């Protein structure tokens, strides 16, 4: 089942540099939340703290609390590997494993979870590829390399790979920035379907995209170069794009800066 995310007092560091400062927010289950803001405002960094991917970078660390329903992801006896199996992630550039076929790519997460039963894997592969709106395009070439697909197909393959392990939350870090408009549309449609099952958080540089796909929008900003990024406001997408509470948000969405 999709889960609620409740962040309080979160700081993220790269070495001694504080990239994200004191963020608190609540993300409701089965909604799409979009993070917008200028480059360097820490929205991707913050996204990566939600599945403990931030700390895989040498020297990076996190302070604060991220509650997934009633479990703190940064609690003492929490295994980051288990967190990442619950909170899936899709990256900016499509990154299917080049050494694997389409089917092996989708099954990669299942294999990591110790699933060996061929029938179970085949069913999960089909379900996930259907879920990612890719099944009809690839069902006849499941054994061909995943790297042979187009960029948009590769990104949907990555989404299929992420949802195959049935995560509760799906994080997407600018999933369409490397794609053409048609592929982008396909992914956006997909996001609309996926939110029936998953809690989705998407980072985007494209404000129209945020307006199209999200229920709630969070605006991040930074005071200047070398300053940490902060959450300026989070509200319903409609409100953010029509009548935001903070002047900086309005300046940003109306194109006055950033």
């Amino acid at each position, binding site marked *: 089942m999709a889960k609620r995310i409740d962040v309080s007092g979160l700081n993220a560091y790269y070495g001694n540099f504080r990239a994200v400062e004191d963020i608190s927010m609540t993300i409701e289950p089965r909604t799409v939340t979009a993070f917008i803001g200028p480059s360097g405002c820490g929205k991707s960094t913050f996204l990566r703290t939600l599945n403990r991917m931030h700390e895989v970078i040498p020297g990076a660390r996190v302070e604060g609390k991220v509650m997934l329903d009633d479990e703190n992801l940064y609690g003492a006896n929490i295994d980051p590997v288990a*967190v*990442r199996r619950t909170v899936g992630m899709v990256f900016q550039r499509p*990154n299917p494993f080049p*050494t*694997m076929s389409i089917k092996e790519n989708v099954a*990669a997460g299942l294999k990591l979870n110790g699933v060996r039963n061929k029938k179970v894997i085949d069913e999960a592969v089909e379900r996930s590829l259907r879920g990612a709106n890719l099944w009809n395009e690839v069902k006849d070439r499941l054994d061909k390399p995943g790297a042979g697909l187009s960029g948009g197909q590769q990104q949907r393959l990555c989404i299929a790979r992420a949802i195959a392990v049935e995560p509760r939350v799906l994080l997407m870090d600018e999933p369409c920035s490397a794609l053409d408009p048609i592929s982008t549309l396909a992914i956006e449609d997909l996001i609309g379907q996926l939110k029936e099952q998953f809690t989705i958080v998407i980072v985007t540089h494209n404000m129209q995209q945020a307006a199209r796909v999200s229920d709630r929008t969070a605006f991040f900003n930074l005071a200047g170069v070398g300053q940490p990024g902060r959450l300026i406001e989070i509200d319903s997408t409609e409100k953010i794009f029509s009548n935001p509470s903070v002047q900086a948000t309005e300046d940003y969405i109306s194109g006055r800066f950033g």
Partner: protein
Amino acid sequence: METPRDTSAPPSGQQPSSSNLAGASPQRGRSSLSDTGNTGRRGDAIFKFASSGSGIALLVIMAAIAAFLTVRAVSAISADHGNFLTTSDWQTQADPITFGIAAIAIGTIISAVVAMVIAVPVSLGIALFISHYAPRRIAQALGYVVDLLAAVPSIVFGLWGALFLVPHMIGVNAWLNQYFGWTYIFHQNEPGTQPRSLFTVGIVLAIMILPIITAVSREIFLQVPRAHEEAALALGATRWEMIRTAVIPFGRSGIVSASMLGLGRALGETMAVATVLSPSYVINLHILDPAGSTIAQTIANQFGESQGVGRDALIAAGLVLFVITLLVNGAARLIIARRKEYSGADA
């Protein structure tokens, strides 16, 4: 041949009006876009000549070596009173002359296989430790040590093997014989002898080929795109699972190439083998026994004191080594080519 591209005019009958920029139709005169000689075309031609010349020179040298080896080998083999392929003895001074590569070819392969079995896993372990586990400072220091190991002359490894490793292998051999003697290869005919054996040689060779395999595979592992590693981590892979899912498959062809470089050195190593092994021209698959010899060692040991057919016989042995190396490399290429579309080289 100055501007080879200009001669590749469009196929006849296809729109002759679409003239080439470089003035393929002379009646138009020299436009500002024609080749005035200062657009670097000459440098292009010189470079093309130099690079294709180098490539051709390599082929010519290879062919010349093969031809030389073959001609001399044929004259030796026709003087041989034994069967060159199945005889294990090496009597080129005696009458009648009998020699064959059976024993020394098998000895070469055994020592190289022992070396590979030990060196490849250890090298990959070191390479992965350097690329993915060690803190940067330790990784750097370890990298230097590995490179240093590559710079040690082979005679030094040979002396170390003969003076240190051989006496210390007695206990190891006794243990292997006691617990693994049933596997046949670890059986000792005469327990307790000085183990100047193919097994000891294999260990020395393993240490010698370790640096090259480590250095090459480390470079490959460092080239694995961060995006693939993060993809695995984000699926909930542990570090070892990430290495198994993203790093090793990506580096597969590189690992094979690295191993082949090491194997090439192990097959051809002369000095270290000659120092450690006491040669005997018998086939003995009990690798702990002080028996057997390798092709390179035989050539080195006997070249000084043989002449005529004796020398040609050594050249024939060299040809066999050449062929073994070619076969091994061919096999490696097949392994790499079989999964070419999955190589990730274009990612």
